[in-house]
């Protein structure tokens, strides 16, 4: 996997770093009740296993001369963009064919098939988790994709797969330490991840004091927006439908990740901070302290003086006797 471009502090308190978006919903297959959310499976041979590369769960194909598959919900992709398909695999592929596959579609409903790209898992034993990855270009007409973990021809084996990813190239993300921000300050946000049908626009923005945020968003047509607060217990802005450009003033009472999420096609979204932070944090250097030992030293000196004096006196008296 290529390394990200180095992070830089573009101005005090704003760090520009690079991240790759994983387009696959519930990519670590951890979320779900009886089966992982946003994943579909064949009638037989496909299981949600309590074995994991990270977390607690993975997908399992356990087949004996049979076929089986796991398929994720289709998601939006950009035509012509390079995507890196990844999955961690463990187990034993004894006979037949096992693949990690990405299929490209002309429509979001995944009904108009274009083509597919495969990463074959060679037959063999994988006692430890092994990463399989390859980069593919989305076809020119592609609008959506889905990812499969499958054995399409009669196969035998017990193969686990976990932590799927279909990664974009490195995209800029901002991390904001707002307490250090001079105001006014404005930042254009890039979408950083998708989860179910929501698009999250900021990876991590942290502040620790009450603040007012102006969120300006423009939809291509109509869209909806919500802002989820840091502790995931309430919305700072409930889901609101809007058209064109609109600005929402949001009170943000501190501590955590500020996450605007949108549904629908968005031209841009910006954050601005119209008022100074209400309680700016100050960090004046802490001076070196002093360790006082002079009392002990003085005591030792006096004790030495008294003791030495006594001994000296005694020695002299003894010698002159």
């Amino acid at each position, binding site marked *: 996997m290529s390394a990200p471009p180095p*992070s*830089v*502090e573009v101005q005090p308190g704003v*760090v520009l*770093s690079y991240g790759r978006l*994983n387009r696959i919903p*519930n*990519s*670590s297959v*951890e*979320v779900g009740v009886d089966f992982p959310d946003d994943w579909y499976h064949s009638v037989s041979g496909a299981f949600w296993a309590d074995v994991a590369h*990270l*977390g*607690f769960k993975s997908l399992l194909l356990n087949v004996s001369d049979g076929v089986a598959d796991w398929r994720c919900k289709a998601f939006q992709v950009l035509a012509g963009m390079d995507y890196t398909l990844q999955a961690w695999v463990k187990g034993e592929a004894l006979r037949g064919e096992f693949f990690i596959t990405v299929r490209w579609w002309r429509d979001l409903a995944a009904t108009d098939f274009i083509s597919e790209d495969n990463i074959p898992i060679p037959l063999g034993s994988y006692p430890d988790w092994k990463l399989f990855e390859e980069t593919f270009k989305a076809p020119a007409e592609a609008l959506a994709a889905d990812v499969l973990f499958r054995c399409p021809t009669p196969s035998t084996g017990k193969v686990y797969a976990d932590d799927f990813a279909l990664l974009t190239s490195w995209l800029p993300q901002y*991390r904001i*330490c707002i307490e250090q921000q001079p105001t006014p300050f404005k930042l254009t946000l890039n979408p950083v*991840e998708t*989860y179910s049908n929501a698009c999250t626009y900021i990876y991590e923005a*942290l502040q620790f004091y009450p603040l007012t945020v102006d969120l300006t968003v423009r939809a291509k047509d109509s869209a909806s927006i919500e802002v989820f607060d*840091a*502790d*995931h*217990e309430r919305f700072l802005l409930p889901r609101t439908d809007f058209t064109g450009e609109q600005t929402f003033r949001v009170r943000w009472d501190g*501590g*955590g*990740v500020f996450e605007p999420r949108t549904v629908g096609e968005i031209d841009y979204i910006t954050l601005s901070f119209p008022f100074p932070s209400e309680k700016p*944090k100050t*960090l*004046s*250097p*802490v*001076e*070196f*302290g*002093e*360790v006082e*030992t002079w009392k*002990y*030293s*003085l*005591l*030792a*000196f*006096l*004790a*030495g*003086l*008294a*003791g*030495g*004096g*006594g*001994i*000296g*006196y*005694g*020695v*002299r*008296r003894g010698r*002159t006797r």
Partner: protein
Amino acid sequence: MMDVKEALQFLNNVLWDEARQGYRECVGRDYVWFIDNFVAWIVMRKYDPAKAEVLERNFKSYDNYPYGFSRWCILYGDTENFTQSPKVLPDYMRYADLVALQYLYHWYKGESERAKLMYAYLMNMLVKPANFPGDAVFIEDLATRVGYKTFTDETYKWILAMGKPRPEGHTLYKLALLAMCSMRHNRFDVAKQCLETIGKFQVGNPQSELYRNGDPNLFPENPLIEKGGIKTEWWNPDYGPKPPWLETKANVETTCLCILAQTEYSEGTSIWPSVIPWLLIGTALGFGAGYAFGRKKS
């Protein structure tokens, strides 16, 4: 405060892996990490030079060599090989360990103004939770809660599903690093508070309300198996349920860093180095005066 002798026994009797000639990460995990054994090497150079030699000889055979070297080397003043924290993470000032190591770097380089600022960052992270049983101080940095206020099991599922940074609670190794910086900053009062808290996380320590009888939850059959070791973190129950990935075992890294801090404190607070010269001077002068006085009288 912690008992260094017990901690060393935990390392040598419980975690030492004779076959791999290194320390295992913790009870129940057989990884012999380079980073753990590197910190152990720094400790053993003082307490068991023969073992330190063994560790040094085997560095390259440990897991993940040499990950961690360019960071922990500052613990013994190696400014040449140290990777400065701003290069590790541009907003390093939000992470206590990165700040503490950067403090040590500036201190060893004699850059006192910069060291002062690092210490200010650290002091801003010092908290005293009201709900901890007994008095204690902890470090609360960004990693403690990764930006969240409280947690639910749903949050944890979401964090895992999305591959988000995981909260780590109040870690004890960061407190040990703060203690080291505090002593260099002549703030032995702060170091003392840190080390008193650390003592409360030493398994089997009579001063520890939490672990004086060991850890029957984690090790019901042998609660005192980690006796002497320092637990990795405290999870504040006010945040919500403890994350499923936090095991809260006593491990090599935390125990070794705490030993280093405690050793430095015990040596640093010893008054004898500054007192003995004055005692000798006093004795010499007194002897001379007494001798002279005795001659006059005779």
